[in-house]
C-alpha cells in the first residue's frame, strides 16, 4: 500500500504546479497570491481560492515592526520621505506611522507638513536657511541637511511678497508653485503696517487646531471627534512683531519685539508646555477626520489637570525680544555671538530670547529661541527651537527683511 507520505508528496507536487503559476504573477511586481498550497490535516486537500493579498492580512505587530524600522532608519531628508509615503498607503499604515512619529519637540525631526506648525526641539536649535529670489519676490525656507553652510536642503515653506496700497502681505505656502490663499497648501501670511514697523503673522487655522486632551498617558488616540464647530480657513493672529529704533537711533541696532498670541509665557518655565497642532483642518469638512494623533504627552497631561483650554493662555503670552548686541571697542561694531551660523554683518541679523516677565526685574534670558542672519548675497540662516514653530520663525524672519527701521 502506498504510504501516506507518498500520497501527500503527490498532492504537494500537484499543488506545487498550481502555486508556481501563481508565482509568475508575483514576479511582475504585484501579485494575487493564491493560497493553494495550504493543506489541512485530515488528509483532504482544501485549496484556498481567495485571491487576497497576503500583505493586507499581515499581523499588526509585524507591520508595526517594519514601519518602525523605516521610521528609525530614514531619520534625515531626503530618505525621510519614505516615512511620509508609508503614511499615505492606507488607513492602517497611516494610523501606525502617525503614532510612531514623534513631534519635533521630542524627536528633533521634521516629518510631516504639520511638523512646521509644531514647536521646535527642546534642547537644540533646528538649523534652516532662507533663500531670497528677488526676481519673483519669493523667499524659500529649507531645512539644512548638513553642518556646512552649503545650499543643500529640504524645502519647507515658501513666501511670496504682495505689495498692497496700505500694507504688504507675505503669503506663506507649502507649495512654491501654488501660492494662492484659496489653495489647500496655504499655511498663513505675514502682514505689515504701512510704515513697515509693525507686523502680524496670521495662521490659516486656529492654534489649537486638531489638538486634543487625552484621558490617559497612552499615546495612541483611537477615536477622535472635534467638539468645536467647523473651522474656516481664516486668519488667526499668531505673532505680533514690532520694530523700534533704539536710543542711538539708526546708528544702533534696532529693537525687536515679538508677542506670540497662542504660546503662554509659562511655556519656557520648567514643566511648561506649548500648544501643538496635530493636523491640518480641511475647511470643506462638516465633520473632522476620525484620526488625530496628539503626541505631546506633557501638554496633554498638563491641560487635563488644569482643565484649561489650550487656545487662551491665561498666564500671559510669550514675548520675545532681540538680544542686545555688545559694542566691540576694538572692532568698532555691534557684536552678537552667532556661533558661526551668521557670517555677514547686517542690520537684519538678530537673536531672539524670552523677555523677562513684565514687572519682574531680571536679566535677559540667555536661551536663544530664534536666530537669523546673513551668510550670502541672498542666503540667510534661520535656527529655531521650542516653543516656537518653523512657520512662526519664518514669519518673524520675513519681517526682518521687510522692516524699514534702521536700514543702512
Amino acid at each position, binding site marked *: 500500500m502506498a504510504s501516506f507520505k507518498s500520497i501527500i508528496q503527490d498532492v504537494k507536487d500537484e499543488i506545487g504546479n498550481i502555486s508556481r503559476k501563481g508565482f509568475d504573477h508575483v514576479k511582475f511586481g504585484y501579485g494575487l497570491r493564491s493560497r493553494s498550497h495550504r493543506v489541512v490535516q485530515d488528509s483532504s486537500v482544501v485549496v484556498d481560492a481567495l485571491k487576497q493579498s497576503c500583505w*493586507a492580512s499581515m499581523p499588526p505587530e509585524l507591520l508595526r515592526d517594519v514601519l518602525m524600522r523605516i521610521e528609525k532608519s530614514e531619520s534625515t531628508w531626503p530618505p525621510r520621505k519614505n516615512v511620509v*509615503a508609508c503614511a499615505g498607503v492606507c488607513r492602517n499604515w497611516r494610523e501606525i506611522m502617525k503614532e510612531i512619529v514623534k513631534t519635533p519637540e521630542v524627536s528633533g525631526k521634521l516629518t510631516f*507638513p504639520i511638523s512646521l506648525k509644531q514647536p521646535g526641539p527642546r534642547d537644540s536649535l533646528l538649523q534652516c536657511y532662507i533663500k531670497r529670489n528677488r526676481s519673483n519676490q519669493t523667499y524659500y525656507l529649507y531645512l539644512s541637511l548638513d553642518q556646512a553652510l552649503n545650499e543643500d536642503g529640504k524645502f519647507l515653506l515658501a513666501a511670496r511678497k504682495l505689495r498692497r496700497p496700505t500694507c504688504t502681505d507675505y503669503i506663506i505656502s507649502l*507649495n512654491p508653485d501654488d501660492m494662492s490663499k484659496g489653495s489647500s497648501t496655504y499655511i498663513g501670511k505675514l502682514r505689515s503696517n504701512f510704515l513697515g514697523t509693525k507686523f502680524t503673522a496670521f495662521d490659516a487655522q486656529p492654534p489649537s487646531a486638531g489638538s486634543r486632551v487625552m484621558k490617559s498617558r497612552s499615546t495612541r488616540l483611537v477615536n477622535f471627534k472635534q467638539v468645536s464647530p467647523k473651522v474656516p480657513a481664516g486668519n488667526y493672529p499668531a505673532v505680533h512683531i514690532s520694530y523700534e529704533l533704539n536710543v542711538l537711533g539708526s546708528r544702533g541696532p534696532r529693537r525687536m519685539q515679538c508677542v506670540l498670541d497662542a504660546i503662554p509665557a509659562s511655556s519656557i518655565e520648567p514643566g511648561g508646555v506649548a500648544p501643538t497642532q496635530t493636523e491640518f483642518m480641511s475647511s470643506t469638512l462638516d465633520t473632522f477626520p476620525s484620526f488625530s494623533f496628539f503626541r505631546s504627552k506633557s501638554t496633554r497631561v498638563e491641560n487635563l489637570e488644569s482643565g484649561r483650554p489650550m487656545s487662551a493662555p491665561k498666564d500671559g503670552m510669550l514675548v520675545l525680544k532681540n538680544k542686545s548686541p555688545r559694542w566691540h571697542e576694538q572692532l568698532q561694531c555691534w557684536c552678537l555671538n552667532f556661533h558661526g551660523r551668521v557670517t555677514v554683518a547686517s542690520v537684519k541679523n538678530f537673536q531672539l530670547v524670552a523677555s523677562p516677565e513684565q514687572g519682574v526685574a531680571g536679566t535677559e534670558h540667555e536661551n536663544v529661541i530664534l536666530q537669523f542672519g546673513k551668510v550670502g548675497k541672498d542666503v540667510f540662516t534661520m535656527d529655531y527651537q521650542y516653543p516656537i514653530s518653523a512657520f512662526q520663525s519664518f514669519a518673524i524672519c520675513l519681517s526682518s527683511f521687510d522692516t524699514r527701521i534702521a536700514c543702512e
Partner: protein
Amino acid sequence: MSSSPPPSSAAASPSCPKKMIALRSSDGETFEIEEAAALQSKTLENMIDEDCAGTPIPLPNVTGKILAKVVEFCSKHAEPGVDDESLRAWDAEFVNVEQATVFDYILAANFLEIPTLLNLTCNVVADMIRGKTPDEIRKFFNIKSIFSPEEEEEVRRENHWAFE
C-alpha cells in the same frame, strides 16, 4: 497513521552526540532539527523545556515547504565557526525569494519566535518599501487604500511636499 521516523535516540543514549527534535508541519511532513538549532526558536525552546521529547512537535501554523527552509535557517545559524560576513551573504541568498515566500517566512519567524529570522525578513520588507511612492507601495503589496476624499487630499499634499 503516519510513518514517523525512528524515535530520537539521543535522549537515552549518552554516546549519541546530538539531540534531535522532531517537528511536524501543518501538512503532516516531519522534520528533524538539532536541538541547538531548535533553540533559536523561543517557541521551540519552551516546548523542549516542557519535555515533549519523543513525539514530533506539531506546528499547525507552518507548512512543510516553509518549515524545511526554517530548519535550514536555524541549522545554519547554529553552525559553529561561520564568520559574520559569510553568514550575512548566506542570509541574503536565503531571502532572495518571491515576495509571497518572504511573507511566509515572516509569519513562521513570528510564530516560532526566531529573532534572527524575524529581523532578517522584516528588513527585507522594509527594503521593499523604501523608495516607493504610496501608489507604488500599494501596487507592490496589493493593498487597497480606502481614504475619505479629505484624507486623500491630505495624503496628496503631504507627499507632494515630501517629494518636493
